[in-house]
């Protein structure tokens, strides 16, 4: 399922031999996901019926079922599409401190499109809670992101770019909480907690991860 998602939403690499017909089908699917996102952002998850999505697209439910197995598949793909791009947690081993900061700040709700993505994400989480089996599946995504973050933080700590007296796992946990929190705060209070503010808060959290003259111990000798 995830593999399909990645291909369809442009995260992964599209195979070179993809035919024109499947490219057209992909485009239909991407349009559908975009329409689904709008419906969920505007009206909530529970209102996102096949009929509502078809209406948003100006088509029929018959056309939708040609491209997707069922509503569940559409909703799943729409959710995964909200979390693509830089925040998928893949960092090259030579990533710098600034790359980490950029990766997170670029994914905050900065404009209408990303605000919609966050709303879809919250809608989905709210819908998941009473369904533990699905929540578990989604928790795996968090786990994956966190691992990648912890690894990047550990590498930077080895190079002396991040303080070495904080467990990278804990820093990654807090970073993810802070990131999700900044997103939810920004979604609920866009006026007092806009894009600039969210970015500033994240950057200053990163600042607390920087080595400090009085607090560093071995990091000076490493790298």
């Amino acid at each position, binding site marked *: 399922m995830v593999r399909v998602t990645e291909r369809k939403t442009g995260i992964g690499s599209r195979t070179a031999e993809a035919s024109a017909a499947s490219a057209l089908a992909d485009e239909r699917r991407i349009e559908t996901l975009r329409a689904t996102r709008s419906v969920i952002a505007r009206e909530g998850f529970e209102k996102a019926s096949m009929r509502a999505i078809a209406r948003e697209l100006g088509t029929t439910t018959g056309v939708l079922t040609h491209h997707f197995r069922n509503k569940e598949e559409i909703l799943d793909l729409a959710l995964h599409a909200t979390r693509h791009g830089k925040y998928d947690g893949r960092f090259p081993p030579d990533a710098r401190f600034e790359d980490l900061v950029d990766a997170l700040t670029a994914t905050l709700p900065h404009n209408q499109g990303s605000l919609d993505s966050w709303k879809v994400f919250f809608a989905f989480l709210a819908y998941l809670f009473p369904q533990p089996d699905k929540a578990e599946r989604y928790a795996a995504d968090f786990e994956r992101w966190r691992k990648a973050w912890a690894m990047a933080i550990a590498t930077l700590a080895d190079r002396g770019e991040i303080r070495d007296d904080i467990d990278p796992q804990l820093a990654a946990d807090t970073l993810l909480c802070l990131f999700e929190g900044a997103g939810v705060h920004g979604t609920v209070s866009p006026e007092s907690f806009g894009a600039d503010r969210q970015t500033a808060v994240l950057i200053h959290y990163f600042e*607390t991860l920087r080595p400090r003259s009085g607090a560093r111990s071995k990091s000076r000798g490493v790298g």
Partner: protein
Amino acid sequence: MKALRKCAGKENGGSRRGRPVGDHETKRGAFLNAGIKVIAEQGFAGASLRKVAERAGHTTGAIAHYFENKEQLFAAIVEALFDRFDAMLGAAPENETILRRFRRWLEMSDSSVWVAGFQMLARARLDPALAAIYQQHHARYRRIAVVRIEQEQRAGLIRNDIPADLLADQIGALADGWSMMLPIERERFGPEHVERLLDALILQLSPPRR
């Protein structure tokens, strides 16, 4: 806000009819607690006044006397959660640091409060009245936190190279982030882990050791 005033009006209406105020408050509190449980179990979409009334052992008619609709009940639940938080803050020793208070908050709630809290926070994205309640309380806590952090910065308890208002927003965003991750990953965010996370945060926000 409108919903709140309506709630308040309803309460007055109740006591005017000669109903003992204590009884009224107890019953209202029972509905709020039942509401938290139903939302935690079935989500916002699955919660209805009827289910909440049943859960509290009353009829739909009885709950309608307290809350006109689902939105009003949820606004009251959010207010009640903030009231609990305020009571916790009020009970804290005067000289307790802001991060200790944060720890208290993380420890005070059971999982249904976390889950229901997030359901409501997520709902606020679609419900301007609910969002207004959050915005108002967030702004209030932020003001309190900024004053507190400035004091602790002067006292050398918190690093002073980051402006107090940014630290206040950082803690506020973290609180929201935690309240959303805790229910999703209940096993990961057990008490011991939360304790370690807070210790790391305290270390990061401390002034450099000399």
